[in-house]
């Protein structure tokens, strides 16, 4: 059996958190909340909240990058974060019409778990 590839070195949870915060910040104001990060956008009329903690984000990224490395793939990060995370946020946020939507991880993707109409 060939030796396992070395585990890629990952940024700290704080750096990953700031990356996520900066990514969300493209669209509006971002603040921390008890659940994670809240993005206020659309002239402050709408809120998208990502339910995630720093440790959960770090664990998610480590598992994602580690699994890719085990299969001989590159880190698969875009903007320093997993592409499925970025893509699925865009999908949920971009099509949001409700004043408030809360997103949470389901596997590798963020999904809408709660919204107000």
């Amino acid at each position, binding site marked *: 059996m060939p030796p396992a590839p070395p585990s890629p070195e990952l940024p700290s949870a704080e750096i990953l958190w700031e990356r996520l915060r900066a990514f969300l910040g*493209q*669209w509006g104001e971002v603040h921390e909340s008890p659940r994670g990060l809240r993005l206020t*956008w*659309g002239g402050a009329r709408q809120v998208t909240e990502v339910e995630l903690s720093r440790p959960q984000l770090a*664990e*998610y990224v480590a*598992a*994602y990058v*580690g*699994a*890719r490395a085990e*299969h001989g*793939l*590159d880190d*698969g990060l*875009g*903007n320093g974060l997993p*592409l*499925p995370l*970025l*893509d*699925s946020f*865009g*999908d*949920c946020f*971009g*099509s*949001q*019409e*409700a004043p408030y*939507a809360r997103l949470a991880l*389901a*596997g*590798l*993707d963020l*999904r*809408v778990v709660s*919204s107000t*109409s």
Partner: protein
Amino acid sequence: MNQRITAFFVVICCVSALAVGTTTAGASAGPARESVTAADDVLVPDADGGNDGFSEPAGAGAPSNLASVGQWSITTTDANGHAVGLGQLPDESGTAQTAMAAASSWWDGQCGSNSSTADKFDVVKQYNRPKVHSRMSGSKAKMYCGKNVSTQSEAQFGLRHIRTSHKSQFASLAVLEGRDWGNFMHWSVTWVISQPGWRTVQNADRYCYQKLFQFHNPSGSTFDRQVVVILGRTGVRIMTAFPSTNADYCQGTRI
């Protein structure tokens, strides 16, 4: 978390809350799909499939309490600023083929809803996409069968993803003119990709396109929606498409 993510490499076995792909009547009415190797993003082995078990979120469909459903008209504007109606396409698109592809239920009959994604790179439809950036390959964007859940090897993309996550949003707008979701999705994506309102290099792996669509009812009231299309690294793979209320969705460097 490791175990949970690793499990995606094996099999995903959930029941979708959204029934998709069961219509067969339209399957023979459209152009034959071509089976190709995708020329977009990194192609890697992928053994996943299946649905995600989540209900479709309430997204950017039509506003509630709209009157005269079925009597509205949906328009966008061409490169000369002229209004064009649903069904009218850019000159280069070929109306005969598009009319078949846009037939009611045709898009439900493509690719199926099974858990296998062996056919994820089967091409359902190609769209003229001018090459406007060095990273872009060729002059077509492609709607692949795709997959509706991400794995470590690649994110969700294509028709299966759009149908699972955004069908009801397209449908709630299409019904205003008495049209099918796929009818409106296909027509709007054609315009967004060929003549976008604007487009951006969203990051090293994605292009973002969006365009304004207007909805008019017989009494004169109107509202707007954007339709957003995200393309992969080389501008070939359609990752997703959805209606949006966000006039500033596409971020990044404009091209």
